[in-house]
């Protein structure tokens, strides 16, 4: 099996790796690049645990081939906190509101929520629920997640 050579950018850093043509971006992130934030919940686009951004667009990394990332910009949960370890407001609010239990869904939800707030700094509860409809959580019942996003959005608007 001949391997493909891919050059891409992950959270602003240029990286390269070798992969099989059938390999997904999710597997490449985890197995080739050691970025374990994106999770595999289903592998078929239903759960959102693998959410990343590709050239700024929110996507399921389980439904992107690693080879498709050539020359593109990938954003994962690892890129959310600042370099010194200061958490993103969404991350802080998720902890404050206890918006996670097992945490498997959390990286995907954080990436998805960040993408929402970048284009809509003041979403309604309904808008948040629809935006996150592709992110499944089997633990929290969603209410705490929605409240954490609303609270983080409010704080980010004040600081803006």
């Amino acid at each position, binding site marked *: 099996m001949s391997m493909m050579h891919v050059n891409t950018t992950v959270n602003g850093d240029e990286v390269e790796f070798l992969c099989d043509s059938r390999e997904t971006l999710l597997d490449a992130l985890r197995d080739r690049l050691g970025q374990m934030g994106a999770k595999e919940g289903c592998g078929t686009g239903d759960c959102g645990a693998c959410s990343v951004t590709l050239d700024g667009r929110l996507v399921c990394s389980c*439904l992107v081939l690693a080879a498709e990332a*050539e020359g593109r910009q990938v954003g994962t949960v690892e890129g959310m906190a600042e370099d010194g370890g200061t958490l993103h407001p969404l991350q802080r609010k998720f902890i404050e509101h206890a918006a996670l239990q097992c945490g498997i869904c959390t990286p995907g939800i954080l990436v998805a929520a960040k993408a929402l707030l970048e284009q809509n700094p003041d979403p309604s509860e309904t808008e948040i629920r629809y935006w996150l409809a*592709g992110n499944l959580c089997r633990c929290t019942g969603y209410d705490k997640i929605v409240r954490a996003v609303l609270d983080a959005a409010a704080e980010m608007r004040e600081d803006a």
Partner: protein
Amino acid sequence: MRYHTPSSFEEASEIAAAAPGITRILAGGTDVLVQLRADIVEPDDLIDIKRISGTGDITRSDDGGWVIGAAVPGVSLSEHAALCADWPGVVEGMALVGSTQVQGRATLTGNLCNGSPAADSVPGMIAAGAEVSVVGPQGPRRIAIESVPVGPGKISLAKGEIVTAIHLPSRGAQGGDAYERFIPRTEMDIAVVGVAVNLRRDGATITEARVAIGAVAPTPLLVPEAGAALVGSTLDDASLAALSEAVSAACNPIDDKRGTIEFRTHVAGVLAKRVARTAYDRAGDAK
């Protein structure tokens, strides 16, 4: 699996025409990669069309219509204000496909070429009178959307043929379109019934109408009798009843746990009335 990134449709078509085994085109990959991952279809050759210039563009055509590149994701349609103003029904059909994440990738062309009877964007495109342009070994051609799907998972394109773009006609005066589906949940589900209506008014009177249905036959269907039931009317009760009857009569659905034949047939008629009212109101609001 060989992964190709051609830089032109001609090259893509040559690769597809010469490919000996199972070939798939990679647009957004939200069907192709699910099928690959679930071991349903592993292509021998996968041809990614996203590196071909122009495939991600939405442009106005000379006749005032729209050309939507084969790799334009759903989210780009929803973000395009002028397109949404002209063809809200086409855009809302596509916007129903999957989650925010799926919208970042899934395309109209992929939705059409996957050949699902329940493909949500296809009734709206049929009702709009949209066409696809195709390149292939026999040269380019342009065909109506409704001639593409021929059965569940089957389309009419020949080996080596690839869709390059979707063409929506010029909206013209006093036109409106709409699409709705019935699903058991409110999000993230496959249509049990889908109906699209596109019509034009002259004052209160409907002068042209096209009605298409999805998920109630082996392919999405244009229902000429349903369009005819509306033309000449002001969307009064009698014409709505005739519309509903024509739509139900055209249904040839499957029977499964998500909807019996009787249920799907009935709901199609009910939805048709609702969708016609929306299209009629939109046409009234349009210039």
